């Protein structure tokens, strides 16, 4: 259908430190861009309307629900996803703590929690339990009851000091 023919937009962006040029339909979310255009699927879709946090990514130092950002909006920006957390030398302390504390069951919400929690610890190295719960209020987990997630974030904050 001719009226649906919308031109793709060239976007230059940096994802997990790697600069790239991508072609994005102007109506497509950053979440879909990451998953379908860039081809990294660690960022998950749980609701596609900004209420579950499974698609959380770090955009220029701020955490956002990538389903609520358009792919064309990330021109010139720095995006960090769960795939960028571990280095060739090993896991990020949060990833290690999530494993040791059994802070995941099914694991679908885990990437979003890790990206959110990293943004917290990047700015506040020693958050209280209340602060962690408040910070993670935008990430839904249906399996754990949050107990072990909160403990893992607290443990990682102590160990990365």
């Amino acid at each position, binding site marked *: *259908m001719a009226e*649906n023919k919308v031109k793709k937009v060239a976007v230059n962006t940096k994802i997990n430190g790697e600069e790239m040029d991508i072609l994005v*339909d102007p*109506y*497509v979310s950053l979440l*879909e861009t990451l*998953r379908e255009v860039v*081809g*990294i*699927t*660690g*960022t*998950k*879709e*749980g*609701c*596609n*309307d900004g*209420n*579950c946090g499974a698609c959380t990514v770090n955009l220029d130092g701020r955490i956002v629900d990538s389903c609520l950002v358009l792919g064309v909006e990330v021109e010139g920006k720095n995006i960090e*996803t*769960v*795939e960028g*957390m*571990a280095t060739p030398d090993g*896991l990020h302390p949060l*990833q290690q703590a*999530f*494993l*040791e*504390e*059994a802070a*995941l*069951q*099914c*694991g*679908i*919400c*885990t*990437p979003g929690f*890790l990206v959110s929690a990293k943004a917290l610890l990047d700015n506040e190295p020693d958050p209280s*339990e209340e602060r*962690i*719960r*408040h910070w*993670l*209020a*935008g*990430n*839904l*987990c*249906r*399996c*754990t*009851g*949050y*107990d*072990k*997630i*909160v403990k893992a974030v607290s443990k990682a904050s102590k160990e990365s000091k």
Partner: protein
Amino acid sequence: MVSTSENKNYKVIGTRPIRHDGYDKVTGRAQYGADIKLPGMLIGAVLRSPYAHAKIKSIDTSEAEKMDGVFAVMTSKDLPRLGDVVRGNSEESGSEKHLSENVMAFDKVLYKGHVVAGVAAKDQNTAFEAVKKIKVDYEVLKPVINVDQAMAKDAPILHEDYTGDHLGKKVKNSNVAAHARHEVGDIDDGFKKSDLVVEKEVDMQTVHQGYIEPHSGTAVWDEEDRVKVWTSTQGSFSVRDSVSKVLDLDVSRVKVTPMEIGGGFGGKIPIYLEPIAAVLSKKTRRPVKAMMSRTDVFDATGPGPGGKVKVKIGIDSEGKILAAYADIRLEAGAYPEAFIEAAAKCVFSCYDVPSMKIDAYDVLVNKPSSAPYRAPASPQVAFATETVVDEICEIKGYDPIDFRLMNVAEKGTRTALGPKYRTIGLKECLEAAKNSNHWKSTLDSNPSPGKKRGRGIASGYWFNIGFKSSVNLSLNPDGKVALTEGSTDIGGSRASIAMQAAEVLGIAAEDVRPSVVDTDSIGITDVTGGSRTTYATGYAAYNAAHKLIEEIIEKAAIKWDISEDQIEYSDGIVKSKTDSELKMTLKEIADDPPGGPIVSSASVDLEEAGGGFAVHIADLEIDEETGKTDVINYTAIQDVGKAIHPSYVEGQMQGGAAQGIGWALNEEYFMNEDGVMLNSSYLDYRMPIALDLPMIDTIMVEVPSEEHPYGVRGVGEPPIVPPVPAIGNAINDALGLRLLSTPMKPSRITEALKRKK
């Protein structure tokens, strides 16, 4: 941890290794249902009914078919029409006809969101646009959306062709798909002799399992009429079974590869999109992937049944229960099966009741077809029973734990459906609750003006199913073991299964590498559900490991040319009992073993795992002005049999408690009278967030099950049973109000407080 078993000196069991699939899951590498991408793949989308109850007069797909980028359109005309044959399959039952109609409506839509057509297109956007161009002419009918409406005289009937079973009588033109009755002893006599009789009726709203990963289905239908399916499911073999039935293919023509699963809680046992993707693939000869939105998930999958439960209990002057009656009406949704047998098994399961009668009704309503939700039907009936018990204690001044201990179900107690309990651990849980710091602590009932605090306690039960599981083991040349299994891993079961094989073999948990494989690569394995996986698949792993040791000994005997009975195996070493020179590590025996590689396999088909009980204590703080309720302390106590990986057992207890807290305080399908769910998003269907909950303390009580070599019981389901009544009882303690409907949300609390004044 409280343990009644002697210390068995396990090396692996009871430790907390990092789960085998953990690294993939914290790095984003793990592939869930929607993550699959196949060469040439098309995207599928479906058209869903806007009406909760309507006849389909005609469907016009011509405009959609003409669109650029659309490769195929399908309706139920592309599916075989199946007869009304009863299927029996783990936690599911029902008919093939209903299974098929729930995938795609044939003549009638029975709930808002019922699928009526499907499209395959080059991308998601095109598929959505195409779906909008399909025109359906409906004759809209009046829906029934709760058990009262459905059971009313002259109610609109969902299935005119269905024959219900009402106490053995065949009944047509009724929304009651089944009425079952279970009787023990003479309740009339029991109630007559009672000193006190208390009766309550509770009203539970429909809830959703709420798993974060929406459903998806990907399929390839090849030129040989073989169908390959990739999906996120609790049971790849039940998907194979269901898909083969809906498509009328032999099971061996269907191969299901399970992706990682992003939560299920029972809701990922049914199939939805898989056969549609398969038919669209048949029409296009290309892979097709279809995915649900969150609204689709709420509108058309799940839910856990709502309904009404009336319970009446009579006690003598000493406080012994004499008689109990239950009237259970649960919503099956659009097709039969509201888990009424489970409800009957669970309703009085925590008590020794000399006479009881249970009437249970499976009621059809215009809502999505109910799926199991963690201890299906047990929380609904526990809310009624545990509220009545609390009221008895309140009237008579009994301590709620002492009353429960006085009437406790234990080994030998006769259950509602007949059999007597084998070893169970409810008594030990109640004693652990009594000795807990939480129960011994005092609660300031009026901490500040306008705030009231209260404490509630409740118990609950799930029977834990057994069924079929298969495990293969292969000894690698480096002396490590590869384990393949068919149980999809929803929360750490690769670890709990591998650990049981490692314990037998006397090697580290990390040295057994578990893989969950497709349905062509392992023997039949029933669903990850019913709290069966660590019990049944773990049992298969235990048996397979013993067989592997037999193989190792057999090969060593050939190699050394001595008889097998002169050889022993322990902790990764095979050796001669008499000649200390003859000794090999697993690596040494695995290097070129005589007669071929060392492998083993085992399968089981088990009875129920003895049953699991939980006792929960909840402290609440309630704002009298706003009705807002905060859970301030929470302790979950549970008989876990034997905790294989204690961290994941605690996780089950905490997660079940959190879901139950959400059910008690916030969650409901809020529907208008047309049967349209008005809160079908996570914003409005309010599940607990991190800020809503306190730390959930756990006390694992270990009373080993008699049915498993390590004493494993299912642990996943009991913890969702006590929270609703524990919170209801705590609200009563705080405010002197019995709220008998879920959710016990702020508006219900403030309204009840107004009425009380």
